[in-house]
């Protein structure tokens, strides 16, 4: 749906944004996101909108107009120069035309440049090597500043698709075709209106070489039915032009057909090829989205994810347990219990036998058992050991509250640990326990102090 021109506009906008200009306008991104299609389509939609708003479309039109005018002028110049060159080569008729020399003058440079072009087409760096192309580009730089940006964009777009050599080629071949057409017309005009004689000359080369050369060159025209000089005529034209009308005519046709078949025709066909390929490929051309300026647009326009919103909102208040202090009769002794302690319990061997060791408690059954035992025999002092490397969760905190209900005084012991994994979790234990109602003094990390309190030996 989007044409090459739109891609050119997108590239022009990208280059300007890369240079630091901010071209973004309010609705552009919104329009782009709404546009159906893949990332490239969205970018083109944005470019289309921005180009319209910022007048870049108008710039593109003027640029295209300028290019077209330049092209027409160049073609006209080529035509005229070819015409004039042909006249110059033929001369005014007073001297006989040296056929080889004339062919060399008219076709020599053309063939040389054609060879150079063929060699440069073999893939290497994309064609900066064409002379007409470089001149063209140089002229394009002289355009007003805004239009130079379009040139940059256009060149950038083509060179990424490796199409630049075809563009240079079509300029080159187009101009050469015009020049050779001009030469052909000039030849025809001159040959029609003046009388020329045709010779070939040489000091060191034998006749047979020339016979062979002309026969070779004349093979193709002969296939097309054009009358060309036969070997006898060739030999007879050595040095002195033949007076024979037929001979002159055949030489003339030879010259014309050589210029046509080895000059104009190949150049024209190549031009057609380059121009045709350029047109076809430019419709199939896609933006290179890995370039800076496009890459971030792609991310913004086709994001990897989209939030769907909150489906079950957070409650205002969470159900929170709180430490109770029921009055306890018959509370005596001390007890020690470890909650969710995966390794061996952290207390040392050989504690005071008066201390009830409730062990490590983890599963539901173990918790019930511990609560039952404490319920039957409430204690004065209860030390609860928790693992500070774990996260305090509601289940653990509620259980701690339940345990503390069976003791006159409770202390939570959070032993020292090499806090490699989660140093903040100890802090959250402190906060959560305090929220439950445990005073700061009831939370201890030192082993000696905790065990001393348990044994009743504090203060």
């Amino acid at each position, binding site marked *: 749906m989007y044409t090459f021109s739109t891609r050119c506009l997108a590239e022009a906008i990208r280059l300007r944004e890369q240079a630091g200009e901010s071209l973004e306008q309010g609705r552009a991104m919104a329009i782009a996101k709404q546009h159906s299609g*893949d990332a490239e389509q969205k970018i083109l939609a944005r470019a289309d909108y921005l180009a319209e708003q910022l007048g870049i479309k108008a710039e593109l039109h003027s640029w295209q107009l300028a290019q077209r005018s330049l092209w027409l002028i160049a073609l006209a110049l080529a035509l005229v120069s070819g015409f004039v060159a042909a006249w110059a080569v033929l001369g005014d008729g007073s001297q006989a035309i040296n056929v080889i020399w004339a062919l060399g003058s008219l076709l020599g440079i053309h063939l040389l440049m054609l060879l150079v072009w063929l060699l440069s087409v073999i893939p290497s760096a994309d064609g900066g090597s064409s002379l007409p192309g470089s001149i063209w580009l140089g002229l394009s730089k002289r355009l007003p500043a805004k239009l130079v940006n379009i040139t940059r964009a256009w060149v950038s777009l*083509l060179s990424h698709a490796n199409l630049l050599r075809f563009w240079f080629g079509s300029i080159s071949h187009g101009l050469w075709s015009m020049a050779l057409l001009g030469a052909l017309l000039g030849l025809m005009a001159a040959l029609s209106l003046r009388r020329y004689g045709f010779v070939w000359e040489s000091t060191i080369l034998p006749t047979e070489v020339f016979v062979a050369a002309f026969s070779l060159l004349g093979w193709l025209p002969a296939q097309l039915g054009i009358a060309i000089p036969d070997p006898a005529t060739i030999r007879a034209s050595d040095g002195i032009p033949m007076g024979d009308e037929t001979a002159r005519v055949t030489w003339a046709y030879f010259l014309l057909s050589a210029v046509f078949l080895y000059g104009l025709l190949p150049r024209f066909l190549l031009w057609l090829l380059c121009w045709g390929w350029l047109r076809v490929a430019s419709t199939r051309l896609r933006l290179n989205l*890995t370039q800076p300026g496009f890459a971030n647009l792609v991310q913004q326009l086709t*994001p990897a994810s989209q*939030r769907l*919103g909150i489906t079950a909102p957070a409650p205002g208040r969470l159900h929170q347990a709180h430490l109770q202090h029921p009055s306890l009769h018959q509370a005596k002794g001390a007890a020690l219990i470890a909650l969710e302690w995966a390794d061996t319990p952290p207390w040392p061997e050989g504690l005071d036998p008066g201390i009830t060791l409730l062990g490590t408690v983890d*599963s539901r059954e173990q918790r019930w058992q511990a609560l039952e035992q404490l319920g039957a025999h409430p204690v004065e002092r209860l030390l609860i050991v928790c693992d500070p490397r774990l996260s305090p969760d509601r*289940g653990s905190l509620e259980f701690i509250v339940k345990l503390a209900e069976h003791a006159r005084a409770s202390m939570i012991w959070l032993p020292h640990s090499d806090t490699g994994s989660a140093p903040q979790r100890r802090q959250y234990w402190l906060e959560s326990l305090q929220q439950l109602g445990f005073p700061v003094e009831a939370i201890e990390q030192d082993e000696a102090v905790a065990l001393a309190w348990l044994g009743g030996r504090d203060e």
Partner: protein
Amino acid sequence: MNKPHSPPMRIAVVGHTNTGKTSLLRTLTRDSEFGEVSSRPSTTRHVEGVALFAHGEAIIELYDTPGMEDPIGLLEALEQIEQVGADRLDGPARIDLFLQSPQASGRFEQESKVLHQLRQSDAGFYVIDVRDPVLAKHRDELTILGSCAVPLLPILNFVHVADSHEANWREALGRIGLHAVIRFDTVAPERDGEQQLYSALATLVYRYREPLEQLIHFREEEAGQRHQSGLSLIAALLIDVAACHHSIDNKDKPALQQAVHELNDRVRQREQYCVDQLLALYNFRHDDIDAHLLPLLKGRWENDLFHPQTLQLMGVRIGGGAATGAAAGAGFDILTGGMSLGAATAIGAVIGGGLQTVRYTRRQLFDRLSGKATLSVDDEILRMLALRQLHLLNALEARGHAALTPIEQFATEQTGLRSGALPKALNRARAHPEWSSLYDDSEISPLYESTVHELTNHLSEIS
């Protein structure tokens, strides 16, 4: 693309509180501001959904849930439900019934949200913090979640710590039949971590295999394109710097020193611009929580580009007349005046301003005749720029320093860049001073675009 679009797959991300569920979602969605992440427990208390796209089509809907905080109590409550009903209830029926009870909206309000979401999903990601040991509450949790009749994929988080309980977790999961386990550290996932995740999911829920494979391919393509974009940014930087040639009229020492310092500053600025572009490409902000894991400090390189020690660190061989260990300079070459190389080196050392060579290029014949000097940037600096930026790109793709090779090791592996001939594209750039934007605006040239392209390809081959 005429196939009717099937509805997206719904996945609930569940697990015990504070295991990194929201963090996982941030990584999978590339949305660094999704939800709220802190190391405080019970951070997420709502259910929030996010859709993952591939080619503009929603493939998966992920739902972040609150953490399970009291699985022991919950299982107890669930088991009591079984006893009340007349018929024998199976797992899912029991859960459904529980969700209608008053306890579900009271004491177990948070857990109910999780169960409700899981019951409506096609699969669940069960996120595990392997730093925690396997406790009874975790087992109860798995029992509850397993009875929802939804396929569960366990995801092990924080796997990079030294003394994790990963083996115990794998065993515990295996005992309840969950053998397909994925390691996915949400801060520093492995390069193909996401692909493994979605592949395992595809095996688990076979009918969603096609869209999941679509997602995997899309993400791979995306990653490849982003890599190419990163390389072309680096190529543009290198060409910009390589092409820079600045003429100096005044050749006396202070003026030269000034000019060298200025050139160095411009190169540093240009490098910083490239760094900013790379960070933006990978959605990193300078103050990002992960930014400290990159080899940068607040988004800037710590080591000065022009300090000889930086070169030595990178293992880049210093050639020419550069002074090693001393504070400064490389060889210094002024033809007019006919100084010898030894004297020139000594002056270079005194000039300071870091490694820089004042040299002539062939194009500056005119300048030479008129007695000007030309400043350009040494090969070694180019090498270092390339190495640093490639290392940064590597780090951005690895997303965390657990997977990051230190820069010394990285540089050692890049023998192609560290020594040997510079890439052809850079040599070509040296011959085109008009391509550099360090001093003046650069000029267009079709050859420039194709040179950038060539260098990008070269970098992608060697990196």
